[in-house]
């Protein structure tokens, strides 16, 4: 909200320093986004054109003689064509400082000009919002007065942010009240009394029918005696400073009152109300309205309108209609000051994609009492313009008295930690408009002002006390936290995984959980069809956010495609559907890309590297050894995928990515990725120390030929089983396939390490053990032992 400081000063004698005021507002809960500094203007006075003549030597110029109350008046040459004798205008006198120039006495084609007639531009006001040429002031303005003072032009303008709970402060009076309370200044507000007392002529009493329950209160008031015209300059200037374009006297009054009191108003041409009754009702389906901005809007039943017997005249709380608009023929008007269900206005504004200053206030649920305050203020202004104000008529609910809140004095200290004496609490609350009376022992009975609907419980009042006392005066204390039993295990696990992967040389990345249809196209291009329909976001902001990821793999592939080769990992949640239920899991993905080496098709060193990393990670996280067996997973290479398990329980997958998929994602190298399910990881098992043998060990290398289908891990297991107690290690360390071995077979080299715990193992014992192993392998796998 744009707030001219000069307007605030009308209600409270604020300090001079604008930055101080802005800081104070921020510390009251109204941050100032910007302080608009207005240029310094001086030496501009009001005057009247007493005579006007053509310039003797210039066709385009006229010579005005201007009465500025004192002296002989001024002679001023002007090129403006909207000047006439008798006009009240503003004059920049010799020596005046305007935003762009300094006024000096100068001779214009032989005539001495002693100043300059002023247009809006010279006052740093938007010229397109005012008449072309010289700004016209009102006849009643005193002559020779300092225009800067008179019109409050010596002001900076604050852009104030107002939180949703404080529609009362979306107004000059609301903010002035806050500042006055904080500075301890008296607040001088216009009277809340409505000057309209006479009864309308017979048959002209405004009538309102509240058909919708979403209009809580409607104050209607009739005025006549004023024709549509231009509002006085002071009002137009003040509106312009507040960022509101002046339109005509009625629209300006409604805007002025809205900005000042917070209550939006609307004026109807009394003669345009067909049937004489304003009806507040839901729109009929398909009903249309042409709003004041000239847009034809089709309405649905969600919209709330104020209508006559035939047609809607206003979108409730949003904007009036062209039909019923005050115009040159208007002789009498009916004022609306209404209170609506904020949620209804909000829904309507959203559905119509139309937000106005009025709806911004209504949708925060205004206090009903503002209808009376707003109507009274409008009546005061219109009476000043010469209108006759008739009696206001209220429809709907009476303004309910505020309920007193019992505030235990100790609640203030209990919630804030700082003791504030009862009299100080009372002082702060009173300054904000509350009525405070002593209640039971150590408690205050606090009745909030009618415009503060946000104050309902003691905690609300504690905040008010704290705001006026100043949040900065509350002492900062580090609490001693009492012991509790809440577990942080899940975070701890994730943290150990992340640091484990970082230690293995992987860099953590974050990718988006939402993605577009492009991913499915890539899968399709790779000839892969996902087994499950994706989870869709109902209201994505863009097509790139339509789907919720069901795997971390595509995100990593996209990362690989976009960046230099890097070992990366991500820990994040993935989503899938199980029997119409959305299931969320935390997953780990880690991987890298690698050049396809000069390796035979049955060996892949990159896979073995990935496997080594996976084993090291799982050992670190679970304290246990993991195992990989042939497996399959969507998006992975059918022959290079391992199912990873710990203690027989599946925890994830490692493998090469399906090369067709890598290509579809634009990768130039092969990708290798491990994927683990965090929830499946067994808890860390504390390892036990096993004393190694004190006696030297010996080893034998054995080469054997087995069927291609026999896995190295099976051989290792069989060897260890056959060796029994002597075994201290078995490792397959080489594989060979080729013509010498024969089709369908492969040669494996195994190193068997043996030791005894009671004495040094002899060569004879070792040889015998290996012979037994060879026997077992022959029996179990039909293995041939080579040399």
């Amino acid at each position, binding site marked *: 909200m744009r707030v001219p400081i000069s307007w605030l000063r009308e209600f409270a004698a604020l300090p001079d320093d604008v930055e101080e005021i802005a800081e104070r507002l921020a510390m009251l*809960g109204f941050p100032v986004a910007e302080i608009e500094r207005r240029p310094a203007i001086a030496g501009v006075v009001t005057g009247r054109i007493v005579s006007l003549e053509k310039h003797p030597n210039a066709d385009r110029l006229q010579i005005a003689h201007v009465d500025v109350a004192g002296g002989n008046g001024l002679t001023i040459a002007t090129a403006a064509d909207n000047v006439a004798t008798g006009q009240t205008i503003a004059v920049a006198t010799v020596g005046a400082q305007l935003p762009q120039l300094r006024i000096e006495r100068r001779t214009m084609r032989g005539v001495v000009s002693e100043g300059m007639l002023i247009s809006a531009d010279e006052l740093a006001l938007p010229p397109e919002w005012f008449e072309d040429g010289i700004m016209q002031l009102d006849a009643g303005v005193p002559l020779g007065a300092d225009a800067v003072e008179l019109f409050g032009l010596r002001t900076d303008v604050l852009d104030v942010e107002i939180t949703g709970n404080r529609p009362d402060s979306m107004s000059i009076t609301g903010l002035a009240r806050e500042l006055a309370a904080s500075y301890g200044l008296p607040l001088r507000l216009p009277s809340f009394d409505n000057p309209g007392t006479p009864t309308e002529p017979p048959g002209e009493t405004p009538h309102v029918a509240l058909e919708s329950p979403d209009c809580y209160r409607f104050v209607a008031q009739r005025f006549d005696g004023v024709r549509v015209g231009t509002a006085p300059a002071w009002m137009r200037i003040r509106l312009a400073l507040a960022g509101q374009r002046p339109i005509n006297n009625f629209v300006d009054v409604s805007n002025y009152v809205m900005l000042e009191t917070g209550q939006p108003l609307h004026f109807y041409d009394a003669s345009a109300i067909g049937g004489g009754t304003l009806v507040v009702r839901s729109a009929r389906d398909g009903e249309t309205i042409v709003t004041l901005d000239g847009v034809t809007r089709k309405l649905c039943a969600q919209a709330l309108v104020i209508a006559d017997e035939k047609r809607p005249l206003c979108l409730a709380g949003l904007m009036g209609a062209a039909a019923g608009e005050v115009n040159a023929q208007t002789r009498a008007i009916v004022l609306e000051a209404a209170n609506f269900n904020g949620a209804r206005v909000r829904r309507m504004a959203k559905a119509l994609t139309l937000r106005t200053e009025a709806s911004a206030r209504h949708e925060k*649920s205004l206090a009903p009492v503002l209808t009376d305050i707003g109507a009274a203020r409008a009546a005061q202004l219109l009476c000043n313009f010469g209108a006759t104000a008739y009696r206001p008529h209220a429809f709907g609910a009476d303004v309910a008295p505020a309920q007193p809140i019992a505030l235990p004095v100790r609640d203030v*200290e209990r919630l804030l930690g700082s003791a504030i004496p009862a009299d100080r609490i009372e002082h702060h609350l009173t300054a904000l408009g509350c009525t405070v009376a002593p209640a039971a022992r150590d408690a205050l009975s606090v009745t909030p002002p009618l415009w503060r609907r946000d104050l309902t419980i003691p905690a609300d009042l504690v905040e008010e006390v704290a705001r006026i006392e100043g949040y900065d005066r509350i002492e900062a204390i*580090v609490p001693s*936290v009492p012991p509790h039993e809440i577990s942080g295990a899940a975070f701890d696990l*994730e943290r150990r995984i992340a640091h484990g992967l970082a230690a293995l040389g992987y860099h*953590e990345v974050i990718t988006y*959980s939402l993605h577009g249809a492009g991913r499915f196209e890539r899968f399709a291009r790779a000839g892969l069809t996902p087994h499950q329909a994706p989870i869709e976001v109902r209201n994505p902001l863009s097509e790139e956010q339509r789907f919720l990821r069901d795997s971390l793999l595509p995100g990593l592939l996209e990362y690989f495609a976009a960046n230099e080769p890097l070992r990366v990992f991500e820990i994040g949640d993935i989503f899938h559907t199980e029997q119409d239920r959305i299931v969320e899991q935390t997953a780990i993905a880690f991987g890298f890309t690698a050049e396809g080496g000069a390796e035979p098709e049955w060996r892949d060193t990159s896979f073995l590297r990935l496997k080594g990393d996976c084993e090291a990670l799982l050992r670190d996280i679970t304290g246990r050894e993991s195992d990989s067996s042939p497996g399959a997973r969507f998006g992975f290479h059918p022959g290079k995928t391992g199912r990873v398990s710990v203690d027989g329980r599946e925890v994830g997958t490692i493998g090469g990515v399906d090369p067709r998929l890598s290509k579809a994602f634009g990768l130039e190298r092969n990708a290798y990725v491990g994927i683990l399910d965090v929830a499946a990881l067994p808890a860390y098992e504390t390892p036990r120390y096993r004393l190694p043998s004190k006696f030297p060990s010996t080893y034998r290398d054995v080469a054997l030929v087995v069927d291609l289908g026999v896995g190295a891990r099976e051989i290792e297991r069989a060897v260890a089983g056959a060796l029994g107690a002597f075994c201290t290690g078995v490792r397959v360390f080489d594989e060979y396939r080729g013509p010498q071995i024969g089709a369908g077979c492969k040669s494996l080299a195994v190193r068997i390490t043996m030791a005894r715990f009671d004495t040094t193992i002899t060569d004879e014992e070792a040889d015998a053990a290996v012979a037994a192993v060879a026997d077992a392998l022959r029996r179990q796998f039909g293995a041939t032992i080579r040399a």
Partner: protein
Amino acid sequence: MAQLTEQLAELQRRFASDADAADGPQALERVRVAYLGRSGEVTKIRRTIGTLAADERPGAGKAINAAVEAMEARWLAARAALESRGFEAELAASIDVTFPAIPATLGSIHPVRRIIEQSCDYFMRHGFAVVVGPEAEPDYYNFDALNIPSDHPARESFDSFWLTDTLLLRPHTSPVQIRTMQRHRPPVAIVAPGKCYRRDATDARHLFQFHQVEGLLVAENIHFGHLKGMLTGLCRELFGAHQRVRFRPSYFPFTEPSAEVDTTCPKCKSQSLSPRCSMCGGSGWIELGGAGMVHPNVLREVGYDPDVYSGWAFGAGVERLGLARYDVDDIRRFVNSDPDFLAQLS
């Protein structure tokens, strides 16, 4: 006998010359084997003893043994000389220690996690537990339980991605508060980091996917002063010991009183109000997040008596903290995670 003496003297001369000429340990060993080994020169001479007269034999044996002893000593001297020559050469070497290192390949954790961990560590030192929760949460946990009923205007400030009529991607980590309080009686002291989503257009200051760190302390006699104490400590933990913290009144449906928390801009140190600081816009402050005393309605919702228990909560945006902490120009860099960005901040 004289011939033998002559032979031995000649042998020793040749041995000394060969030992001195050896240019390494292997060559020196070969010399030893050639002369002193089992079938070496000395053995050959020893075999000739049998051809001598019986009375000459003891003298000859002595002479040979003496020669062997001398040769062994000579050999050891040669080996010592060789070693010392080797060290001399090695010690003469000199490298350019300023030459660029061969890069080590340690991985890294993401700067977002780094901030989360540092924040959580601070709270853990003070007795808080770190708790996590799901990202897809029913509206009950996101709104209703947090004193934001369905028609509340504040729902609009949490513009969210909806998955079903009731399920949405959480726009804040606050559901974790509700879930934790429902599972535990007070005291509750938790910090909840996690991913959140809001329907914000992405630009240099906004992400539709971001991380929050949320804190909650509920027990008897917990007050706003404790909130100030802990958050002041957090800012100093993240930004340095002299960091100042400012609490401004604000509005959140789930806290009362509520506050916005600012801390002094780590970039300009609140010194340069003009020209405008790119981090704080010249205000001298950056926003840390929202905070306040837990609203009595929220406490009641989880079955806590607000007359007995009080508590506070806060929430801070991690990437926003990251902008200020690492002086990053564009918040999207945290999601793009390009290698150079990660390398610089790891």
